[in-house]
C-alpha cells in the first residue's frame, strides 16, 4: 500500500547538514578563510560582485566560501542580501578619466599619452601549468622596480577622438533623467540605454561572452575596435544635500572598456565612430569587453541599422542575460510536476488509444479507430482510467 510522502521537513534539515559537511571537505585540511578567498581569488570575488550587483569584497568572498565555489550560487546569495539593504541615494557619475590605474591599453593607437600599461594580466602568460604552485610556500615574485611611476596624465582615448568630433559625444544632455533602476522598477520595452547598461552590468559573463562573440561571427557585425580598456580604482562621490557639496564616500575597483565602431552616418549627420560601453566591478576584462559589444549591438535601432541578429534584439538579450533568474527557472524543473505530468500522461494515453500505431509490432488498443481522428468517447476508459466530463 502506498503511503503519502511525509517527512519533507526532516529531509530538508538533514540536507543542510550534509551540505555543510560537503562544503567543508576534508576536515584534516585547514579551513579556507574568507580573507584568503578575498585576497587570493580576486577574480572570483570580482565576478560575484559584478553579477551579485553589490560591491563588497568581504561579503562576496563569504558568498564564494558558502557556495563552495559555485560562483552563480554565490552571486545569488549576494543578490538576496542586497535586496534587504536600505537605499540612501544615487552617487555622482564616477570619473574613470581620474582612475588610479593598474592597467590601461588601447588597440587603436600604437602609442597614446601615458603609454600602454599592461599591469597584472594573463594575456601573455604561456598557458603552461605552473607546477611550482603545487609546492606550497613559494615566495611570490617581487613587483618590478620601475624607475618612475605611471604618468599621472592618462586621458581616455575616446576623449581624444571625441575632441576631434570623430566619435559621438557621451556627455549627458541637459535634463538627463535619473538612470532607470531595474531592481526597483520592472523592465519596460523598448528599454532606455541606462536600463540596458544596468542589465548588462549584472548579466552573466558567459551569456554576454557568447552574445558578443556571435556579433563577431556575422550575427550582427558592429566592426568593433578596442579604443581603451582601463582597470583601477575610482572614487565614489555623493552630493550631500545638507552640506551643499559632494564628498567622497569610498573607492571602487572597476574595469572599463570603450569600443568604437563604424557608423556610416545618415542624412543630416556626418559619419562618425559610435560607442559600445562596458563597465564592471573589479577586474573583469572579458566581461567588460563582451558588455561593450552587446551594448553596441543593441543600439542598432537608434542608429538606423538593420536589427536582424540575436544580439540586436533587446528583448531577447535583456530577458535572458540574468543568471540568477535563468538558474532558478531552469532548475525549477526538478521540483515536483506530478499534477501537470499526470494530465499530460492521461492525454497521451487517450491520444494513442485513438490513433493508428506508428510502428509494426505495437498492438493497437481495442478501441483504436484507425482513422487517426478518434473522437473522445466513453470507450477511452478501456485504455485509460480517466475520461473527461463536461464542466458544470
Amino acid at each position, binding site marked *: 500500500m502506498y503511503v503519502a510522502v511525509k517527512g519533507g521537513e526532516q529531509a530538508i534539515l538533514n540536507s543542510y547538514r550534509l551540505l555543510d559537511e560537503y562544503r567543508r571537505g576534508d576536515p584534516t585540511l585547514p579551513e579556507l578563510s574568507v580573507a584568503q578567498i578575498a585576497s587570493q581569488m580576486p577574480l572570483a570575488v570580482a565576478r560575484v560582485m559584478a553579477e551579485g550587483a553589490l560591491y563588497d569584497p568581504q561579503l562576496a568572498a563569504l558568498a564564494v566560501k558558502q557556495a563552495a565555489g559555485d560562483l552563480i550560487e554565490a552571486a545569488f546569495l549576494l543578490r*538576496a542580501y542586497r535586496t*534587504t539593504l536600505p537605499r540612501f541615494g544615487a552617487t555622482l557619475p564616477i570619473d574613470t578619466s581620474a582612475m588610479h590605474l593598474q592597467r590601461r591599453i588601447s588597440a587603436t593607437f600604437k602609442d597614446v599619452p601615458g603609454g600602454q600599461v599592461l599591469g597584472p594580466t594573463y594575456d601573455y602568460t604561456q598557458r603552461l601549468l605552473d607546477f611550482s604552485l603545487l609546492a606550497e610556500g613559494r615566495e611570490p615574485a617581487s613587483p618590478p622596480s620601475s624607475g618612475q611611476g605611471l604618468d599621472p596624465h592618462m586621458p581616455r582615448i575616446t576623449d581624444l577622438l571625441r575632441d576631434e568630433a570623430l566619435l559621438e559625444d557621451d556627455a549627458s544632455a541637459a535634463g538627463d533623467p535619473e538612470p532607470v533602476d531595474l531592481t526597483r*522598477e*520592472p523592465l519596460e520595452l*523598448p528599454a532606455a540605454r541606462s536600463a540596458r547598461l544596468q542589465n548588462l552590468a549584472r548579466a552573466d559573463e558567459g551569456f554576454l561572452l557568447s552574445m558578443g562573440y556571435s556579433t563577431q561571427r556575422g550575427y550582427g557585425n558592429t566592426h568593433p575596435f578596442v579604443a581603451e580598456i582601463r582597470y583601477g580604482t575610482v572614487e565614489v562621490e555623493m552630493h550631500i544635500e545638507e552640506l551643499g557639496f559632494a564628498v567622497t564616500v569610498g573607492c571602487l575597483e572597476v574595469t572599463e572598456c570603450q569600443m568604437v565602431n563604424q557608423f556610416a552616418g545618415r542624412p543630416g549627420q556626418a559619419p562618425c565612430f559610435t560607442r559600445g560601453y562596458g563597465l564592471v566591478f573589479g577586474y573583469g576584462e572579458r566581461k567588460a569587453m563582451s558588455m561593450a559589444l552587446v551594448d553596441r549591438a543593441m543600439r542598432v535601432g537608434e542608429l538606423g541599422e538593420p536589427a536582424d541578429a540575436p544580439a540586436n534584439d533587446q528583448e531577447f538579450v535583456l530577458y535572458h542575460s540574468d543568471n540568477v533568474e535563468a538558474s532558478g527557472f531552469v532548475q525549477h524543473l526538478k*521540483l515536483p510536476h506530478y499534477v*501537470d505530468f499526470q494530465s499530460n500522461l492521461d492525454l497521451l494515453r487517450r*491520444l494513442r488509444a485513438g490513433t493508428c500505431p506508428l510502428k509494426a509490432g505495437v498492438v493497437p488498443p481495442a478501441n483504436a479507430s484507425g482513422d487517426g481522428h478518434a473522437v473522445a468517447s466513453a470507450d477511452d476508459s478501456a485504455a485509460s482510467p480517466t475520461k*473527461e466530463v463536461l464542466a458544470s
Partner: protein
Amino acid sequence: MTSPTAHRPTTANSPPAPVVRDPNYNFGYLDESTKRMLRRALLKAVAIPGYQVPFGGREMPLPYGWGTGGIQVTASILGPDDVLKVIDQGSDDTTNAVNIRRFFARVAGVATTTRTREATIIQSRHRIPESPLREGQIMVFQVPIPEPLRWLEPSEAETRTMHALAEYGGMHVKLYEDIAQHGRIATTYDYPVIVNGRYMMRPSPIPKFDNPKLDMSPALMLFGAGREKRVYAVPPYTRVESLDFDDHPFAVEQWDAACALCGARDSYLDEIILDDRGTRQHVCSDTEYCTERQLAAQGGKP
C-alpha cells in the same frame, strides 16, 4: 557525496523543532515600502481582473521559478493574525511547500496550517484545494510564465499590444488546430481562460480540472510571477470562462478509479507506480482532503 559513515542524524525520527521567528528580518521579509508598492500593484490587478500588472519584483532568498512571485504577494498581504497554508502539487508535505512554510514561520512568525478551512491565505503551486473556499480566504498562486499568449508570440512588446486590442483569435486557432490534428483539445494544464469577459489569463499550471473552481469563487485569487515581475488577480465572484467551442465544450478529467486511500471519486488523482510490472494506483493529489476523508471514515475527529 560524503563518506558512508558521515552524519547519521540522531533526530531522523523525531519531529523537527518548531521554526523560531528571526528578529533580524522585517515582518514578512520585505521592507514596508516594498510591500506598499506590491499592494498598490495588487489593488490595480483586482480592479482590472485578469490584467497583468508589472511590479518592481525584488530578489528573494529563494530561487526564481520556485515561488518568488507567490512569496512576494503573500509577504505583502500577510498580517500577524493570518493563518498560512502552503501547498505544492496539492500536497502540504512536498519539500518546496515545507520550505516556503518554514520561510514565513521564520520571517513572519505567523501560524501555519495544513487545513484548507482554517487558512486565511493559501499559497499554492499548480493546484486549487478540493475543499470549497469561502469568502475572506485568499489564494496566492505561484506563476512561472504569466503570459497566456507566450507560446504563440515570444515578444512581450507584441503580447501587451494583443491584450490591449483583445486580439485573442490566435489562441482559438491553436485550440482548433488541436482538434483538427488530435480530435480533441490537447491543452491539459495552464488552460487559458477569459476573466470577466475581457482579459485572457493563464491560470498558472493548474490542471484544467481546477479551472471551474476559479469561476465565481467566493475567495480572492491573486497570482504572482516573480521572475517575470507581473501580478494579476481574479476578484471574488468573477466570471472565469475556459476557452472552448460550441461543438467541443470545455471538459475536465474524471477518473474511473477512486483514490486508493480515501475512496474519493471527485478529486484530482495522482498516479503512483507500485512495482516494475506496471502496477499502478491512484491517490488524491490534495493530501489534506484525502487525510480528512480517511479520518472521517475511521470516525475520528478531522
